[in-house]
């Protein structure tokens, strides 16, 4: 990953000023740094970011791309948990209370688009579940999510989110990679690229996929895009370890160790011809890390040491099989965060190959049933996870993000039993480190149809997440194909109002 322009297009100007060059020796890291500076002559001398802010380029040690790196500025959050609900959770049936819908139930909507994602709209539909005031803040939340509802005093809602697309895969791409198109790095990849990770025995970024499979954008949601492959999310869950983690069955532990010993010998001899070569040393180090992961991942996946009360609180037992599996994934999330993993992305839903609305939150028909099924899986374990993080003090330095790609319409689809996609307004929430508690930012209109007060783009949302991680979204960049690329493209404003 020593592409000269990636390491030094602009950062070198700052380095120059700080006089790093004079201090550079020829140790391994010295060579790495020297290589960062070597191409001064060959690069254009103007900052090439659209915002004209100078990028802060993470100084990545080729020997260990995961070594912890400083954030741009000090913020409480050091780790982040993203709970992603693919399929589009209906905001008007969960967290965005709209009494007007009840009042006008069954009537033609006064503001009516000719056609939405799947076709012509039907009549206004009141929320499929009753809303009640919750907690001390009295926040109105529906009965669909009774457990999360109990914790609203800790949450910070975004009610006026808008997105650029009403198709799921593009929507997932947008939320998770900042672009509707294919091939951009995910939020988790950006974060680990910037910050590395504290724990050096587990992957820096873990993507815990739904037991039913990947979401519609598949690997995009946790992929590295054009960032080096080192920063992709490692894909495993409570049930299945990463591919090829374990030594093959046909090999004894002794044979495995012997392989490693011979490998060390071969590599050590080879290295003598290339003294101080950081790339070779880095590859040797990666085998050591892999060896550690072979122990640390099974350990972190092993839930047998969890107390009965934890198992109960998370809802591992007593619910559907899917809830049980998701609950285990929630416990795994907590265990990973405890170990210091930088980014955990937890999915609650997959692609719709099992049938419409059954494998994720997409509820074009029979929303009463399909949303209820999803909620049964998601609500209790997620609420328990957040409560557990709080109780263990992890929320002091962990940001929690609960997100989905868009909302659902205030009226029925056709005149059926479901709601179509609504890119004009939807709800996500944050909690944990650095976030204002018991707070709601922005409002949708009286129908929940369009964002009305403080409309918030996905760019703003992602800019805010990076800010909460101590990263300036305009300065966290990577040169790719002519541009200093950012998670937020050329947009986005940090929403200061939600900062604690």
């Amino acid at each position, binding site marked *: 990953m020593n592409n000269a322009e990636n390491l030094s297009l602009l950062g070198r100007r700052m380095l120059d000023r700080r006089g790093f060059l004079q201090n550079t020796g020829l140790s391994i890291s010295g060579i790495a740094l020297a290589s960062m500076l070597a191409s001064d002559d060959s690069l254009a001398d103007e900052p090439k970011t659209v915002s004209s802010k100078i990028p802060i380029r993470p100084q990545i040690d080729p020997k260990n791309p995961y070594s912890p790196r400083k954030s741009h500025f000090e913020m409480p959050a050091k780790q982040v948990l993203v709970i992603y609900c693919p399929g589009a959770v209906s905001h008007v049936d969960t967290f965005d209370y709209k009494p007007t819908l009840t009042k006008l139930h069954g009537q033609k909507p006064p503001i009516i688009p000719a056609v939405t994602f799947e076709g012509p709209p039907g009549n206004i539909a009141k929320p499929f579940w009753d809303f009640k005031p919750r907690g001390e803040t009295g926040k109105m939340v529906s009965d669909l999510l009774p457990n999360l509802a109990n914790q609203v005093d800790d949450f910070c809602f975004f009610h006026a989110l808008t997105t650029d697309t009403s198709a799921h895969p593009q929507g997932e791409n947008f939320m998770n990679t900042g672009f509707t198109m294919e091939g951009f790095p995910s939020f988790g990849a950006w974060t680990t690229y910037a910050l590395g990770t504290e724990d050096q025995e587990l992957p820096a970024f873990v993507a815990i996929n739904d037991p039913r499979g990947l979401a519609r954008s598949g690997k995009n949601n946790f992929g590295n895009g054009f960032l080096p492959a080192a*920063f992709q999310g490692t894909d495993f869950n409570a049930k299945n370890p990463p591919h090829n983690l374990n030594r093959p069955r046909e090999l004894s532990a002794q044979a495995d160790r012997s392989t490693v010993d011979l490998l060390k010998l071969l590599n050590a001899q080879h290295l003598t011809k290339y003294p101080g070569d950081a790339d070779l040393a880095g590859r040797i180090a990666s085998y050591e890390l892999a060896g550690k992961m072979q122990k640390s991942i099974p350990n972190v996946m092993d839930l047998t040491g969890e107390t009965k009360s934890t198992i109960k609180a998370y809802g591992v037992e007593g619910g559907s099989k899917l809830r049980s599996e998701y609950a285990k994934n929630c416990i795994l999330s907590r265990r990973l965060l405890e170990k210091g993993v930088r980014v955990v992305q937890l999915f609650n839903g997959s692609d719709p190959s099992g049938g419409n609305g059954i494998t994720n939150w997409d509820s074009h028909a029979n929303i009463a049933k399909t949303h209820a099924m999803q909620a049964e899986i998601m609500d209790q374990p997620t609420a328990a996870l957040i409560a557990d993080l709080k109780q263990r003090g992890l929320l002091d330095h962990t940001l929690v993000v609960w997100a989905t790609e868009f909302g659902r319409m205030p009226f029925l689809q056709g005149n059926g039993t479901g709601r179509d996609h609504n890119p004009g307004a939807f709800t996500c929430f944050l909690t944990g480190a650095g976030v204002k508690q018991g707070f709601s930012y922005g409002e949708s209109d009286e129908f929940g149809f369009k964002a009305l007060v403080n409309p918030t783009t996905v760019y703003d949302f992602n800019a805010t997440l990076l800010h909460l991680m101590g990263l300036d979204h305009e300065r966290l960049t990577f040169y790719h194909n002519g541009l200093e690329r950012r998670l937020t493209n050329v947009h986005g404003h940090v929403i200061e109002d939600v900062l604690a």
Partner: protein
Amino acid sequence: MSISFHFYLPRHNRKTIVGLLIPAFFVLALCHQSYAEGIDFDRDIAPLLKEHCWDCHSGKDPDSKLNLDRRVGALRGGDYGQPAIVPGKPEKSFMIDVINHRDPELKMPPDEKKLPQKTIALLTRWVKEGADWPGQMKDVVEKKSGHWSFQPVTRPEVPFISGKKNLNPIDAFLLRKLHDKKLGYSKPADARSQIRRVSFVLTGLAPTPEATEAFIKSYANEPDVAYEKLVKRLLDSPHFGERWAQHWLDVIRWAETNGSESNMYRKNAWIYRDYVIRSFNEDKSYDQFLFEQIAGDTVGAGEAIGYLVAGPHVPVATVGQEPSARRQARADRMDEILQTVGASAMGMTIGCARCHNHKFDPISIRDYYAMSAVFQDIEFGSRFPELAEDHPRRVRGQELYRLIDKHRKILSETGPWEENWTGYRELHFPSVTTQSVRISFQSAYARIDELEIFGPLERDENLALASMGTKVDSPEEMKVPRSGLHKINDGEYGTEAWAGKSSKGSKEKPWVQFTFKKLHKINRIKISTNRLENMQTDYLTGMNRFSFGPYKVEVLDDDGQWNQVASIGQIKKLDHKHKSRIATLKKLNELVEQLSEEGPRPSFVAQLIRPVKSHVFYRGSPETPRDEVFAAGLAELNGKLPLKPDASGKERRVAFAKWLTSPDHPLTARVEANRLWHHIFGKGIVTTTSDFGAAGALPSHPELLDWLAAEFKTPSINQSERKQQSWSMKYLIRLMVTSQAFRQSSFPRIECLAEDADSVLLWRFPTRRMAAEVIRDSILQSSGSLDASIGGRSFRIHNVKKRYAQWFVTDNYGPHTWRRMIYQERMRRVDDQMFTAFDFPDCGQIRPKRPISTTPLQALNLMNSEFVIDQSKRIADLANQDSNGDQSAAVKRCFELLLARKPNEGELKSSLNLAQVHSLDIVCRAIINSNEFAFLP
């Protein structure tokens, strides 16, 4: 009077340029001047501009690069690409738009209330009356940039290096720069390293132990002769094309799936991949290579334009029903095309000018949409590729058709028969002359997307088409809602279909009747439910089903009687009677299968559609079309094309391809010469291989780059008797790999590290980790498993999936996968659970070069995957076979097979011990994981 004008450029490149052009609107402005009475610029307008505009839009570095303190600045406009004023036309003047707050997101002046109506009216009138600006009325916009890569390629003189004769010019340029820094080349690499290095770079495969041994011997006698012979052999090897095609496919992010929601497989898209491999192997001249990929349909290389649809796309079916979303999706698809062309052929980030003028390069938003007009006839989809008479697929297709006809003749002797063409059925019957044909179904339900009728005279003319004047009838009471009868003969395949259904309680079954305009001789029909799916995709569950049962065909005779000419029931009876028919038909259907693999078949290499008008989309949104634009290349590079405004899509692409491949084009040769260099030395002379603009890197050796570009276009060195052809990639590659720079040792030298740690000046050959494909293919070659056949359908490692499901790996190591990795089905954003971890691209964004990263996932995959465990065993087996039970010999053989060298004493001792205690397999496993195996020597 003329005026100096600053175009935005990096400061060191800014030049003062004298304007020459006189735009038409300027002439117009002059005509209006006399009406400007009443408005005095200095008294009425200048104070307004000063008060409201000049704080931001004046001086050296104005906001949005809009200069309103000069008339030319206003005429040119800023980043949005709209002229701020068009004299005489306030309705086209962006400044008037923004002060009127027409776009709620762009109100000027910002953070202030709207200007008083009186002020707006005055400015509008001023523009309307010609925007009189005393003293500046003759100033005009001049656009030429001073950026290095836009200047013509000139051939620099090859430096003289004292004491060196017959120096490869590449070395002359490199040595001069090294000498300037008091550095020099390293000593030549040893023979073994040279053969390994050049074999990996040219073919992506390790040399066999035997070839290595032979080379080392002949190298000892005559090093240069031996090396040049080796290079020639490697360049002539068909594996050369396989390696270099991969590099090209990376840049354009070619893959065999759409990406996006259902990430569907693109049927026969691989014929484009084979075209690229063939082109490299045949050493097709680069200008021709580019021409064919842009307009190959006009010269019998129709599959080559698969290039244009290499990127991902969102199919209409998953965009949703909103018309604006559909327009946006089409604009996104056009953008993918422009990114492909820009990044691969031009080294320009064209996509940056989609919403506003390019921030760094002289590419205007108008350029972007003019370029999109070039490709307006391209859509992501399938068609029968146009193939020249001698095209291998066409030749093969004719052979197969001859065989098919032979079998048809045999069948015709006993009566009608029905062929299975997977996507449709083709029924043959004896020729009969009629004006009306009726197809009656025996099932209560029938769904047909298209029914075609053919005769023996005009073999390919579908007589059933509505456009031929043919009428269709069917019983009204059996009509299924939303399934118009016209869909059965509208020439459109796919989900838009006719369906008929028996009425409740009625025994009458659906039928369709076709009535021609006149009598026709007919002898076959083609019938299908959804033929499009078969043309476009594959590996989906539930594909190619037919929603109709057995049927019969009747024709109307002169007496008004319906006579049956064929029926499925009748065919069954005939088969029963003449047993040999079944075998003949089976063979025939196999030939049809073969034809779809080897002949010209519908392939996902672009669909051609009728071009629509092209407009500049203000802020990149198709909802805000502005001025109409016509097909052109970049204005900065004399991109005006000799085309009429209504030129056909083909004419546009031909003209554009000619512009791009003209010898005068400053980018084309430079970009490709640099790309070849990048793949050989690991880093381009311009390290940003697909960005030769102002945001890209400057060349480390500008003169060398220009010399290479010039030599690429007009070769000057006679390497053989024959005249060297222009634009030969093999020629340029040979020059590079026969240089001393390439052949020198890769070992570090402490004194050089201090001066040039990154080896930019090439004081050594810079080593690097090899790509995923090279590692994998070399393992297969070591075990003797590699199937070296070239081209054809990709081997599969994934499932057959449901429409909205994900692809997942089912078997990535079995014998069917033992082909070169370029033939592994290339799925967008799917982890192959093996080599994706080695920076194998996800094919979402263009990838001019791969990052080379190190992750523990690579280690786990290479230590524990079924592929490596299985291959280790095979290599060990091979070594054991070769050494007749001598364990020490077997260990040595493993080192030879994998590293083309013998183990040293320490290695031998440890390995032998390991082999005795455990097995030879794990010795191979260790070597496969070693740095020596993974890094270029």
